[in-house]
């Protein structure tokens, strides 16, 4: 990479690193994992930097890498540890003692979502991406985005109800 391009890469990282880290944390629930996720995504973007000539596309490109990389991490972990069965697993309780923010009920439940549903929720409700933009990041159809998001919201509402809290309450 030539010095100009490397400078542009560093400028991009300086400007967008924190925003990417925030999204990565919402995907991973863990600051160290989020930092790793952002760094590997930036590294892969660096390798492709010469072809990223549209500045407006760079962040979408990195975000797509980040989401796919995270899904890949999850799949590796699953492949290492589990095989499919006919019995649904218990929902995880997402009780991470290293968290730096007091948990609210909604966030605890968000962490129980499968990774693709969680990514759809984060991109739609945190990044405020449109359904079409979310579909491009996730590499699926708009219909699948709607399906994943709606299923996630249905699950969140049901679990919130199970916890005996009102749908609007539960904030820390």
């Amino acid at each position, binding site marked *: 990479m030539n010095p100009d391009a490397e400078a542009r*890469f560093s400028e991009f*990282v300086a400007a967008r*690193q*924190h925003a990417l880290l*925030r*999204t990565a*944390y*919402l995907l991973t629930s863990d*600051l160290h994992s989020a*930092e790793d996720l952002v*760094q*590997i*995504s*930036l*590294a*892969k*973007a*660096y*390798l*492709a930097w*010469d*072809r990223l000539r549209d500045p407006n596309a760079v962040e979408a*490109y990195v975000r*797509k*890498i980040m989401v*796919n*990389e995270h899904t890949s991490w999850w799949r*590796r972990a*699953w*492949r*290492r540890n589990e*095989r*499919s069965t*006919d*019995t649904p697993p218990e929902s995880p309780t997402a009780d991470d003692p290293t968290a*730096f*923010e007091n948990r*609210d009920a*909604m*966030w605890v439940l*968000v962490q129980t979502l499968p990774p*693709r549903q969680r990514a759809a929720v984060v991109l739609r*409700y*945190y990044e405020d991406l449109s*359904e*079409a933009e979310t579909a491009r990041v996730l*590499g699926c159809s*708009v*219909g*699948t985005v*709607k*399906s994943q998001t*709606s*299923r996630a*919201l*249905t699950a969140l509402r049901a679990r919130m109800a199970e916890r005996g809290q009102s*749908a*609007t309450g539960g*904030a*820390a």
Partner: protein
Amino acid sequence: MNDMFDDELRRSLSAQADAVPRIPDLSRGAIRQAHGIRRRRRIAGGVAAAALVAVALPLGLKIGDIVSRGQDPIERPLPVGPTKVELDLQTLSGGDEPSVPYLAGRTVVGDGFEIDVPGTAPIAGIAPVSDGVYVATGDGVPGWPLARYSSSGDTEDMGLVQSTPVASTDGRWVVYLTSKTDRFGNSVGPATLVLLDDRSGEQSTVSLPHADASQVDIHAVSDGTVYLSYDDRRTGRAVPLQTWSVGEPAPVPLPGDFDATAVSPDGGVVAELTKVTDFGTCSAVVDRTTDSSLWRTCDYLVKGFTPDGDYVWAIPSNSEGYGPTAIAILDAETGAVVRHYDPVYPRRHQITFSDAVFEDDEHLLVRAEQDGSTTLMRCELLTEECRAAEPLADGTSLGRNPYLLPDVR
């Protein structure tokens, strides 16, 4: 209620994100990591190149030889020429248009026909049959309107479906999924797999009680049999490879518990994932008829077979992020690398090979992106030649996608 719930969800996510502390600049670490990835790729490339040379030599020595493969009575020449092929999409010479129906803009271009898909809804998928094409349009909510366009100009409305259609390599069969949907367009209840015999018009169906219609993978369709896998909607986890044939009450899991990535058109050979690591995947290719593992690789991930099942196309096993930056053709019986395509060195232009389909037993049609543009190129199995089947056009899979390949398995 819904708005308040949505607001609470936004608030919760923002609150968590707001609490994320600023950390030191990651650019240096990312650059170091990038150099490490590049080094590993070079080492892997060197190993692969050595393997390619080793494979290329016997192939090269057999230039012009006619050999038979297994029990196949049809003799065919073996591929010749260099195994490693470097590409620059901007300098590809022009070739014939694709020989399978494909989408350019809103026009389905087939053998002797062009069909302008009416309306403005995005085109989600096309599945070619012997004298026409099935086209799914829209954004999938509450489903994709499916229509059959014949080369003679007739159009048949097939109703709403919950997956894009997949055609068999012989152009006789078409598969898609349906299910009931709620008002949000979510699939509810069991998915129904529909298998259409396009020649007779007969339709067969089977219920998949635990499948989400939008999450079913069709790996192969042949002679009234479908090879499929899906994520169990209750757990989100993959169900191993199953098969279903017309007349059977339910799909049957195949012995071997395959995590399939591709299945030969006759179902006899399966490419499966055997290992997933931090640095990529390992795969095995298994001959189901003899229950034997033909070969294994940790270099490539197999994506599809030629119609005769003799060759596969594959991507590097560590392809993550935006998409594969190389693509290869391997011998399905031995795993020998026949062609490995990647960008010309030095890599001023990176290429993403976003999709591919075998046009026939000897031609791979590839959708490839470079510098914000996309082309369809044809790579010949028997020579090292790749030519542009459609010119580079603005747009990529991130937006304004100019071309779509047919879904044939």
